Each structure stands twice: as structure tokens, then as C-alpha cells.
């Protein structure tokens, strides 16, 4: 068996083993059924939910909110990162702030945002945006730092216009780091939106999970939680595969 196949198999075995263990513990009532339902029940419950309209409305709302937050944070994060990179004094001022950014518990601002914008998707987009943008800024700064000086010199020797130089040389050179920013921005947007919906909102997957929780409806709650988990893993996995493909041709042996 090839090494890669063995690694994949081990990975699958660990996941399946974990799920199987959980299944056994729940069915044997070693874990209280009021606390956790078996994974198989989560799956069947989710399947039933797909039959109803509610979950599709929730999915549409959450995903569209995440998408807004993601696109805005990537655009703003990149623009800000590029701007800060071009202004060394600003960068020196801002660096310590960026370094400690993620120690701030941003969710405390959520009720304030609701007071400002109302109980709709805007506070959710803003929360996701606040979370995700800094990661994109940091990744952009990293990426632009790591464009080898000799490449910037080469753009000048080739007499490229500034726009051409950025588009054809700087961006591709920084791409791996920008991609990391993309991954983080997506993850943080997702976390921000779902958590916000959970705290307080009028709809979406997070809201439905909170509603089911308050209703003691374990079937629905765990089904939705499992769905969110699977989606998050799948999204990240897809990006990871794309990233590996991009890096493969650049990788130095």
C-alpha cells in the first residue's frame, strides 16, 4: 500500500472509529440521551429536516450572510493590507494592534450592532466582517513582505507598468499567503455569523440551533449542529485541496 493511501486510511479510520465509539456510548446510555443523541439518530433527523422547507430557508439565509461577510472582508482586508504595507510608518503604528486583535472578544459588541442596525442580517455581516478582515490584512502583509526583492527588481528591468507589475508579478508571488488569508476569512466569517445567529437573530442555522436548544428538541438541535460541522469541514477541505494543487508546482523539493 502506498504511503499516501495508508495515511488516508488511517485518517478515515480515526474519524469512523470516533463516531462508532460515540454511537456505542449513546446507545448503551453510558452518555445520557438527554445530553447527546447517537450519531445515527442525528443523521436520520437531518435527513427528515431536509424534507421540510425551514432548513432550506435557514441555509439560504446563513450562507448568503456568510458570503457577504466573506467577500467584503477579503476585499477590505486586501486593500487595507496593501495600503498599510505601502506606508511603513502606519505599519509600525498598527502592527502591535494587529498582533493583539484576536484577544478582543468581539461578540460583546453584537448587541450594540443590533441596536444600531436592527435585528436583521446586517449586524451578522458586520460581526463576520470584523472577525475576518484582520486575518486577511495580516495575511496580505505577510504575503507582500515575502515577495522576493529580486522579483520586484525584475519587474522594473522588464519595464512593466505599475499595474502590470502588481498583477503579473506581485500578486502571483504573494498568492500562497493571500490564499491563507482567504481560508481564514472564510472560517472567521462562518464562525462570526453562526455564533451571532445563535446569540440573537431572526433566522438562519444558528438561530434554529438556539431555538431547538431552548425547546429541548435534541433531535433537531444535534442534526443542525452536525450539518454545520460537516459543512465547515467540507469547505475547509475543498480550499485545502485547491491550495495543495496550487502549491504543488511551486514546491521546492
Amino acid at each position: 500500500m502506498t504511503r499516501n493511501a495508508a495515511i488516508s486510511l488511517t485518517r478515515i479510520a480515526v474519524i469512523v472509529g470516533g463516531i462508532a465509539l460515540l454511537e456505542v456510548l449513546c446507545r448503551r446510555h453510558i452518555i445520557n440521551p438527554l445530553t447527546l443523541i447517537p450519531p445515527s439518530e442525528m443523521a436520520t433527523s437531518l435527513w427528515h429536516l431536509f424534507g421540510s422547507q425551514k432548513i432550506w430557508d435557514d441555509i439560504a439565509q446563513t450562507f448568503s450572510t456568510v458570503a457577504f461577510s466573506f467577500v467584503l472582508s477579503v476585499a477590505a482586508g486586501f486593500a487595507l493590507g496593501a495600503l498599510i504595507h505601502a506606508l511603513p510608518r502606519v505599519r509600525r503604528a498598527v502592527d502591535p494592534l494587529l498582533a493583539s486583535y484576536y484577544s478582543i472578544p468581539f461578540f460583546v459588541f453584537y448587541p450594540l450592532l443590533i441596536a444600531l442596525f436592527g435585528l436583521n442580517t446586517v449586524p451578522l455581516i458586520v460581526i463576520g466582517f470584523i472577525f475576518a478582515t484582520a486575518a486577511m490584512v495580516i495575511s496580505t502583509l505577510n504575503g507582500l513582505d515575502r515577495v522576493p526583492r529580486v522579483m520586484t527588481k525584475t519587474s522594473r528591468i522588464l519595464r512593466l507598468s505599475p499595474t502590470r507589475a502588481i498583477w503579473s508579478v506581485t500578486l502571483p508571488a504573494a498568492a500562497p499567503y493571500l490564499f491563507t488569508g482567504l481560508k481564514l476569512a472564510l472560517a472567521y466569517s462562518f464562525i462570526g455569523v453562526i455564533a451571532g445567529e445563535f446569540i440573537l437573530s431572526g433566522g438562519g442555522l444558528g438561530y434554529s440551533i438556539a431555538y431547538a436548544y431552548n425547546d429541548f428538541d435534541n433531535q433537531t438541535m444535534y442534526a443542525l449542529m452536525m450539518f454545520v460541522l460537516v459543512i465547515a469541514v467540507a469547505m475547509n477541505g475543498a480550499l485545502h485541496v485547491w491550495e495543495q494543487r496550487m502549491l504543488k508546482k511551486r514546491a521546492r523539493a
Partner: protein
Amino acid sequence: MNVVARLTDVSRVYPPRAGHAAVHALGPLSLELRDGEFFSVVGPSGCGKSTLLDVLAGLSAPSEGTIEFEGKPVAGVVPDGVGVVFQEDASFPWLTVEDNVAFGLRRLGMDGAEIKRRVDFAVGFMGLNDFRRAYPSQLSGGMRQRVCIARTLVLQPRLILLDEPFGALDQQTRLLMGDELLRLWRETGATILLITHALDEAAMLSDRVGVMSARPGRFIDIITTGWARERDSAIVADPAFGAVTARLWSLLRSESLKAIGAKGA
């Protein structure tokens, strides 16, 4: 005998920054590069050889003095017709060898057939035919430098500047690449300025060798080797080669000691 590039009393001083004093990196120095010659620059480390290249290529403006290329002034803007090969690998890892070489041409909006013709020639000339579809990460250091040289070659520059291009390579590869460089020089008829710290390389390849002093670099002497145009690394057997190398070292030795002394090593 045409002068293709001229530096007159050129000086480069880096202004003082937070915590650093001003650095007088180069000059004042003057140089006339003759059309079609192979000129090497040797000097102790830190003497400003790379600064000289930056200033001559238009990558940085001189603090004093003037630079002319083909009769027109150069000041901080890279003129058309100048190619540069750097010591570090400047090949683009996201493009294949072929795309790397074609990169400069595509930006010019050149006709597709002409691009193909030039790329085919350069790739063949640099011995990269078997690697056209490969990515730089799959090639050795020497091959990546050949990609960079091919990328410069397709633009048909009249002046080619090389900043220690073979610095990262082993001695045997250096000698072979030196022969290739001579071949390239003869084929294209371009003027070549090679910066190197290897005295034997300078002695072997050049028509003239400029010896720079310790920082701030000025030319102590310019030696003419008198080699025939058709030459290669076999010239090491010529007694005159030893004489040239010895002369270079006798000039450089005291300057090198000064450079080390100045660093306080």
C-alpha cells in the same frame, strides 16, 4: 569604437535613516563601456559592485554624476535595451520554463509567431528544450539561472548586466556557464558587464577588468586582457591568464584587507 554606456563622476550615497548614519556606497567613479565588449568588475565585498549595477541599469538614481546609455541620460528609470541577470533566482515559480522565458515578450504585445520564434531560439540556445513544460521548482539552481538568462535573451538587449550570476553554483558549473556566457556574447554581439568576486572568472572571460577599491568603491585600475574574441575556459592553460589573475589579486589584496578591517570582523 563606440561608447555604449558612460558613467561620469557617479556617486551613490544612501541617506541617513532612523539609527543609521548616511552610507556612501559608491564613487565617485567614471567608466566608459565600449560597444560589444565584455567588461568585468571585481572588488572586495561591500565595495558597491551591486550599487554600480543598480545605478547603471536605472534601478536607482545616482546622488551625483551622470549616466548615459546609447547617448541618452539614465536616471532612476530603466532604459529600453538593458537586460539584467541577478545572483538570486528570479524565475517565476508559478510559470513553466516556456512561460517564464516568454513573459517579457507577451507584455510587449508582440506578434505570436515572433514570440514563438524568439522563445524557441532562446530555450534551445540555453539548452532548456527538454524542460520547456517543467516548473522552476523542478530544476537545479544552474538551470534556473539559465531560465533567467533565456528570459533576458529573448528581449535582445544591447547591454547585459550580470550581478554575480553564478555565485550560488559549484566551480565546475561556473566554468561551463562561463563558456555559455561567452557563446551568448559572441552570438548576440551585446555589450556585457559582469560583476563577480571570482578573479579567475573575470580574468578568463573579459576583454577588460575594472578593479574597485573598498567602500566607497572607485576604480583603482582597469586591466586589458587582450584575449581573442573566440575564447573559452581552455584559456586557463595560457600563461598570460595566470599573469592577469595575479595582477588582479595584487591590486585587490590590500583593498580586501581594508574592507575586512572596515567591517571590524
